[in-house]
């Protein structure tokens, strides 16, 4: 019998990644905190006011500099956003660099400057780190691993498990910008829209989330930043964790015309394309308009829209299409591949 091997598809963030997490990691490492499979872990402190929120992530991206950002900014934003999705205030981040023999020092410096700027703007501190250099070919220029710590008010309970019947789904802005910008840069596709360049949406969301919590923390039930696997996969994760159905309306999902055109050209579905500066929030019906209004006033939420609601049945995620049809929106099976024609 053939020995099963890890493939690139196992890292797509879709069904195969989830299968790997459940069958290998949770099976051997599982505990009540890890098993929740939220973006971060809530660790109970001996404090009446705060929970400690802890996360870790690794960043590998090609190219390491892309329109709108770089791997350094990505690593800080990603970690901040993972903490923010649990309603935490990000405080401290660790950095671990794996550098390839031959990496230009000025490139590294540029990345570190970008990290410093992003951390400063977001109000987080880089507090510890590590560096390893590996042989040429053992990594792709630079890999960065981060861990992040934040604190969350104990009165706030935001988790993928908390979506409730009749809740409203709010998306903070246009989807697919990051994934398409990186693909365009990686493959040198040269896609443009007039003078406008396809640009990543990469941004730290902690300030936006802080404002949302301030206006109505108890009304926010679940949040996700739809990174790998895109909006469809993020909603599927919440639907599965909360055992509910989620119905969204295609016509309400914000999508930039160049991203839409690039997806059509390449045969990719924007609902599965990665984002790095967007969030999807599942909020109570009575607080939805108020939360939406606060989001719209924030630069990172000005295109926020209500895109759907939580329904009792059927379980899973469903899309009402622009022409009035309905279809299942499954979790990404594995990486999307560009089509032939």
């Amino acid at each position: 019998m053939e020995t099963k091997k890890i493939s690139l598809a196992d890292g797509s963030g879709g069904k195969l990644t989830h299968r790997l997490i459940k069958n290998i990691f949770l099976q051997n490492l599982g505990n009540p905190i890890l098993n929740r499979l939220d973006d971060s872990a809530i660790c109970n402190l001996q404090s009446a006011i705060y929970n400690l929120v802890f996360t870790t992530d690794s960043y590998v991206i090609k190219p390491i500099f892309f329109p709108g950002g770089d791997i350094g900014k990505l690593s800080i934003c990603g970690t901040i956003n993972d903490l923010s999705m649990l309603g935490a205030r990000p405080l401290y981040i660790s950095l671990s660099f794996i550098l390839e023999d031959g990496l230009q020092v000025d490139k590294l410096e540029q990345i570190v400057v970008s990290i410093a700027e992003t951390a400063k703007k977001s109000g987080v501190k880089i507090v510890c780190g590590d560096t390893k250099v590996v042989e040429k070919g053992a990594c792709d220029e630079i890999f960065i691993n981060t861990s992040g710590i934040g604190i969350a008010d104990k009165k706030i309970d935001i988790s993928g498990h908390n979506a409730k019947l009749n809740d409203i789904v709010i998306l903070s802005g246009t989807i697919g910008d990051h994934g398409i910008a990186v693909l365009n840069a990686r493959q040198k596709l040269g896609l443009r829209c007039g003078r406008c360049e396809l640009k990543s949406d990469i941004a730290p969301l902690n300030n936006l989330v802080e404002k949302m919590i301030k206006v109505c923390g108890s009304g926010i039930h679940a949040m996700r930043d739809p990174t790998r696997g895109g909006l469809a996969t993020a909603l599927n994760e919440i639907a599965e964790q909360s055992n509910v159905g989620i119905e969204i309306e295609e016509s309400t999902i914000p999508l930039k015309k160049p991203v839409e055109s690039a997806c059509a050209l390449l045969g990719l579905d924007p609902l599965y394309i990665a984002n790095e500066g967007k969030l999807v929030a599942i909020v109570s019906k009575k607080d939805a308009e108020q939360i939406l209004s606060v989001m719209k006033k924030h630069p990172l939420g000005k295109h926020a829209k209500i895109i759907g609601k939580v329904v009792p049945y059927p379980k899973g995620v469903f899309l009402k299409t622009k022409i009035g049809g309905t279809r299942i929106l499954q979790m990404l099976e594995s990486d999307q591949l560009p089509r032939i024609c």
Partner: protein
Amino acid sequence: MNNIITEIKSFSKAINIMEVCGTHTMAIASSGIKALLPQNINMLSGPGCPVCVTPTGILDAAIELAKTGCIITTFGDMMRVPGSKSALEKEKSTGCDIRIVYSCTDAIQIALLNPKKEIVFIGVGFETTSPTIAAIVKTAENQNIKNFSIISAFKLIPPAIAAILEQNVSRIDGFILPGHVSTIIGSKPYRFIAEKFRIPAVITGFEPSDILEGIMLIANQIKRAKPEIEIQYQRCVKEQGNLYAVKLLYSVFESSDSQWRGIGLIKNSGLKFRKKYQRFDTFKKFGLKVRNTKEPAGCLCGKILTGIAKPNQCGYFGKKCTPSNPIGPCMISSEGTCAAYYKYGN
């Protein structure tokens, strides 16, 4: 669009319409068109998914070459398609140099950057893709690029439709024909559908509104009992097609008999290199032969590709056969019928 849907719903006769093209299949599934159609209109998927119909022998040959050190270049769709023993994606993970390209031009660039390596491009697709490849072959000829060749697995759509109709088992009452193929070949090569087989056909675009209008036009032709080849996709398609592209295509290639995965041999349905360009033919260059292999027992893809069966009639569908573990061709491609049914829950 509401008027179109109302008109379609006023048509009461039970009919089978085949959408020949995989892009149409996906558009129908992803836009939820089936949910809008009345029950008497039954959509069948056809053989127009290039990945689905590429024989396993082509993949086996590419893998064999990859193992000898050639750089294999391919469109992304082909990466997961299983050959008889392995798939390109699996071989890439073992260290073979297999690269996804977005255009055959990228393969030429790779050839220029790697003069000591042999670069092989897996040429799959229909009339939409092949003229561009013909142009690139001419460029390679002009630039005297010697380390580049193409596995020609291109296919032609009209002979496949003729083969389905000659089998006479699918009971097709109308065809939605691929708009992009006709951008190249126009409408004339399809005349036999209306003239010989008395079946209506509409060359259709890919927006949901295009497809619904195509269905409406077929229903109206059936009402008039006057089958013809109509062009719904008039914004891109002319009756005579793109004469320049056709001339270019046939200056490099000529038609040949071709194996279709799941279907079998169809006469004059493929493209082979003309003598002048044979140095770009991977099979000639490396003395390779495409081996015939059998489809897995119990797989209904052959019937699905010819409109005889639907995916949910196959015992493997959604159980042993899924997009991450495809058994038959229709589940392999993102544009395959089974993949569409699986992903969009038809």
